[in-house]
């Protein structure tokens, strides 16, 4: 057993949980969080792909990919949240 194995399994579990949430949840905010879980799970997998038992240095390429993934994900999250806010105010306006 080693850290790579432990966190690889963790990442796959988090991804599967996020996938379940994305498929089942109805509440807008919760669906966004479910997608965030999926992205963290995928990040785990890539970081594990880079991992080497210390003192060996890890492979830097997946680290760069995950950083890219994190920035991409906050962009997507921001757009989804803006849509949620917009939809909310449109629905409130039509209710009044």
């Amino acid at each position, binding site marked *: *057993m*080693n*850290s*790579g194995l*432990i*966190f*690889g*399994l*963790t990442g*796959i*579990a*988090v*991804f*599967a*949980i996020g*996938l*379940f*949430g994305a*498929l*089942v949840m109805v*509440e807008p*905010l*919760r669906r*966004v*969080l479910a997608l*965030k*879980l999926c992205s*963290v799970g995928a990040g*785990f997998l890539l*970081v*594990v792909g880079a*991992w080497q038992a210390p003192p060996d*240095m*890890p*492979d*830097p*390429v997946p*680290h*760069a*990919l*995950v*950083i*890219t993934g*994190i*920035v*991409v*994900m*906050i962009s*997507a*999250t*921001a*757009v989804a*949240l*803006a*849509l949620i*806010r*917009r939809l*909310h*105010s449109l629905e*409130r306006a039509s209710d009044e």
Partner: protein
Amino acid sequence: MTDPLLIFDVILGLAIVALAVAVLAMHDRFAMIVLFIVFGLLSALAWVRLSAPDVALAEAAIGTGLTGALLLTTLHHIRATPPAPVPVPAGAIIANLGLCGLIFGGLVVAFLSTPLQAPGLALPVAQNMEASGVAHPVTAVLLNFRAYDTLMEVVVLLAAIVAVWMVERGTAQAPSPVMGEIYRGFARLALPAIVIIGTYLLWVGAYAPGGAFQGGAVLAAVGLLLLLSRLYRPQPAHRPLARLGFVLGTAVFAGIALLVASGGRVPFEYPAAHAKTLILLIEGMVTISIAVTLAALFHGREPEYASVSENHK
């Protein structure tokens, strides 16, 4: 004897999985977001354990810190209407649970079959570090070897702010808060410190974990504090400047990538003598853009002339 750190890893991994479940299961929406923030911090800790401090920095600053702030403002915006409870049929839940269970099982089998600790691209990166212009491998990958990906990532950020400004036209302005003395004191102390930390992270990226994204995110936190405290109020007159800030990183990055392509060189092939300077220039501009864009994503609306909604407060 088992390494006690492995026990730490196991507990950490279990806690992360449990929190992921809790985020989705938590009824209260505020608690859901708080749990998500904790989940993000734990993931960052796990990435530290996997010797990925750069990723941990990015996750803590962007994936958790700023995302958490975004989620909190959105919840604040929509909290007036509690979600109508839409019952999900139990059959659908069980079917999806089965599906995701199967996917989990399949992925675990596939994962266990992979050559863990394969060298990957570590060797070619190490061999070309000399030519990359920087001393930190992750920065070399981001800004040189795979610079095209990074440029497109900044483009994604640009697309996000364009879309958000487009979507949120005419959204009601939130009322201004009353800021206490304590907060003002905090802001006075914290803001300069944060600016220094952000710049430091950008600078240190050339030879140690850190860089444009982490630095930009920390600087964006300054923007968040300014916006929250109303020390800075976005004005319609600032729009051209903001737009310039959003596109600056992309424009400089793409421009340099193209301009170096002469005399037999291809795009993104920085001349060896100037590689370090060019990378630092790109990083600096990208940091500014990231900071401005993330703060603007947090603010959401494009500043407009006296909106109607503010008047009837």
